[in-house]
């Protein structure tokens, strides 16, 4: 991630909108070449100091008319984030400093030219210290501050797939940087609820969940203090969450940004259709092969009036959420929730059962693999055992018996 120092955005005060810097093929075609050159610098940069590499990156842009310094600094940061620099782990530079300064202390002050009062000339003392340490003075001098971050040397570069990948990362990183000052984020989503909520939780955000008439969900993400006052303190968490959101499908997002300088409220809007690419892979459509096979076999058409919807409904209570794997919705309005338990570890099973107890008010059909069923404690849910695959026939039979009210 970038830091505030590398954040670059324009402000459209007429629409009170923040527009994070974005490089596009149409407007910034040349940047693809720059990106490749920067990558080449880092790929061949092993052994060079950070300061040296940053200067070389700056030189890439020397004739580019459209290039704020912050954009260059941001590229350096993203490249550095993918780099491993040799660090003076054993504190050799500090040890050398201690040694040299202690050797020099009794000779203080080192004067430019020695006289009768002050007899310790700078050049001579340095020479003597170098002799004592058994290495030439320029060598000692080069080692004295080798632990300073600008003087670290590049060891390995994890690399990006290509220049385009670096530019994609840049575009996402600038949106993240704009989110540092966000107070709250709203996300409208039609699918991938599980991933969205899971990553929001990983980023330690709190949610408010609203089902809209369209069947879409509206999530509001912020934190505990947000209830008491407007605060930017969850901005970094929202920024961390963003790449996961971008990897999802069918969403749009609106964030309220508080300008650090003026305190004004600005908005940041984004949608899945904006063509951004996350470095995270898109979420798996299904958690397991059993789910995937079942959904494929069921198909997209209704069977006996029942339509199968993946992650169709979110159960939530306070800050606890549960997204059952499937929802069956009948033409007459009845719904049945289905959760497949095909894989287990004791911890997984315990957590799942606790969740089921929390949401006990809603009937959830459990499809449980045979070997697990034997170890499954008594649950109040209806249980549909299956062997290696969950059969459409069995489920339909259960649904025809089910008299769940609408």
């Amino acid at each position, binding site marked *: 991630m970038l830091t505030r120092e590398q954040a670059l955005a324009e402000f459209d005060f007429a629409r009170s909108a923040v527009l994070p810097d974005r490089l596009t093929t149409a407007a910034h075609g040349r940047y693809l070449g720059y990106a490749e050159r920067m990558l080449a610098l880092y790929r061949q940069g092993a052994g060079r100091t950070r300061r040296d590499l940053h200067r070389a990156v700056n030189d890439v842009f*020397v004739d580019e008319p459209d290039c704020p310094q912050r954009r260059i600094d941001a590229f350096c940061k993203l490249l550095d984030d993918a780099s491993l620099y040799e660090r003076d782990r054993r504190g050799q530079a500090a040890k050398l400093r201690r040694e040299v*300064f202690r050797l020099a202390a009794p000779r203080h002050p080192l004067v430019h030219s020695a006289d009768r009062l002050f007899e310790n000339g700078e050049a001579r003392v340095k020479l003597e210290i170098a002799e004592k340490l058994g290495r030439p003075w320029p060598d000692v*001098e080069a080692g004295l501050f080798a632990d300073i971050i600008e003087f670290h040397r590049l060891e390995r570069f994890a690399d990006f797939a290509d220049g385009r990948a670096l530019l994609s990362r840049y575009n996402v990183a600038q949106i993240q940087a704009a989110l540092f000052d966000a107070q709250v984020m709203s996300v409208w989503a039609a699918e991938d609820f599980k991933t969205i909520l899971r990553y929001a939780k990983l980023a330690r955000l709190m949610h408010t969940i609203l089902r809209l008439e369209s069947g879409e969900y509206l999530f509001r993400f912020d934190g505990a203090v947000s209830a*008491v006052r407007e605060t*930017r303190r969850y901005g970094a968490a929202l920024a961390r969450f963003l790449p996961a959101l971008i990897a999802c499908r069918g969403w749009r997002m609106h964030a309220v940004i508080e300008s650090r300088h003026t305190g004004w409220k600005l908005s940041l809007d984004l949608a899945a259709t904006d063509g951004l690419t996350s470095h995270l892979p898109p979420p798996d459509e299904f958690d397991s092969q059993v789910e995937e096979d079942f959904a494929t076999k069921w198909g997209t058409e209704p069977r006996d009036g029942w339509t199968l919807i993946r992650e169709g409904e979110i159960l939530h209570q306070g800050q606890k959420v549960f997204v059952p794997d499937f929802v069956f919705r009948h033409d007459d309005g009845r719904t049945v929730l289905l959760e497949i338990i095909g894989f287990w570890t004791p911890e997984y099973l315990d957590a799942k059962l606790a969740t089921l107890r929390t949401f006990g008010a809603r009937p959830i059909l459990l499809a449980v693999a045979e070997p697990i069923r034997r170890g499954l404690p008594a649950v109040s849910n209806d249980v549909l055992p299956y062997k290696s695959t969950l059969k459409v026939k069995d489920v339909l039979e259960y649904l025809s018996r089910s008299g769940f009210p609408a």
Partner: protein
Amino acid sequence: MSATGPRLSFVGGTLLLEGFSGRGRPVLGGAAEWIWDDRVHGWRCDALAYPALRTDPLFTAAHVTDAVPAWQRVTWPKPLLRKLRPDQRQAAARWNQTGRGCLVMPTGTGKTEVALNLIAGAAVSTLVVAPVRDLMYQWHRRIAEGLGYDAGIIGDHLFRLSPLSVTTYDSACIHMERLGNRFGMIVFDECHHLPGRVRADAARMCAAPLRLGLTATPERSDGRDIELANLIGPTVYEMAIAEARGSTLADYEVVRIPVHLSNDEQRRYERLSRELRTFIHERRTADPGFDWEKLCAESARSPESRRILKAFYAKQAIEDRAEEKLRVIEDLFRLHAGEPCLIFAGSNAMARDVSLRFLIPCLLSHCGKKERLDVLQGLEARVYPALVANQVLDEGVDMPDVKIAIVIGGKASTRQAKQRLGRVLRKSGNARATLYEIVCVDTNEVERSRTRRASDAYDKVRHRRERPKS
């Protein structure tokens, strides 16, 4: 505890009151501003309101289960505290009357001593918040010396929580959502750093009933110092700097030494100045409103403007690192041979220049804890004759016995000047303290030096005439 009765807990830096209906705002805690949080079906307010809540008789009457305090009584192994002077005793007594408030005492009058005494007396889990890493480690050391306790450290990539812990404002701000109920007492060192849109969270999200603020300079240029009363407590004791001078602190004077650029530097400086002037003249002719901001904005679109910006910074660097400054430092070292000496540089590069020229330790932000300690204690023990630092020593770091300070470049901020002065004002014998200021003449640095001296810390200070220049 009844499962259904009302319950107060600490959650993410706020107090959460559950078991009350969402219809009517609870009337508990006087000024506490309860807000209904539908996400968790409870009332919330800032953790800061906790002491007011606990002293509200209604709180007891309502039979609220209090799950907030996670702090504990502490008995100190072996306090080795120095006896307080009468003025320090008075400060401590004033704070003890209410257990909350700020002590305003000039640098060098022993704020830390007073605080350690109060911490020892409170005998409860305590968190000390310091502005920077160095001061955090200094508190750690002082606690080890005074209370015989190895305090926990939160910050500087460490998270070691103990009933007595030290941290920085930045770390406190980040971690208070998890720490806010772990301490019964919180100490804000240099508490003028606390007010602010984000930083105040370090106090707002903390439930500690005992709150102590320490500062030499409570006033802020943005006037936000009023918030301190709310976040910590009112000023309960104030010692004026004029009172402190002469009695507790050594007398001091300020000597300004002008230096000139070398011929070579002068040539480069003038070439860069010409380049800048020509550019700005041309631009102003075309656009009379052309200014620095426009130049910066333009640099995004024009390599020419970027070059001009670079020229400007190069010009500053020439001032900052003028060779003559090194020669003047040599003169001062000769003049004060045998006296420990502290040098403040305006940039890391200049600090390294000085360090390399004289082979004296330099204290920069990258130095590890061990090295810092070695350097600071080494100066005190006269193992090292002098040390050079940039802003890491700007505030509050104890510098016993240093009577000579040299400032080479630096910003014009009033507080910085006061703090830097404070460093050489430590009490020790009757030796006079001297602050030398080395500035380039015919450059902007002179202007900054004038602004610096306008601060009241420089009032009534004898200014020696400038050294005549051949």
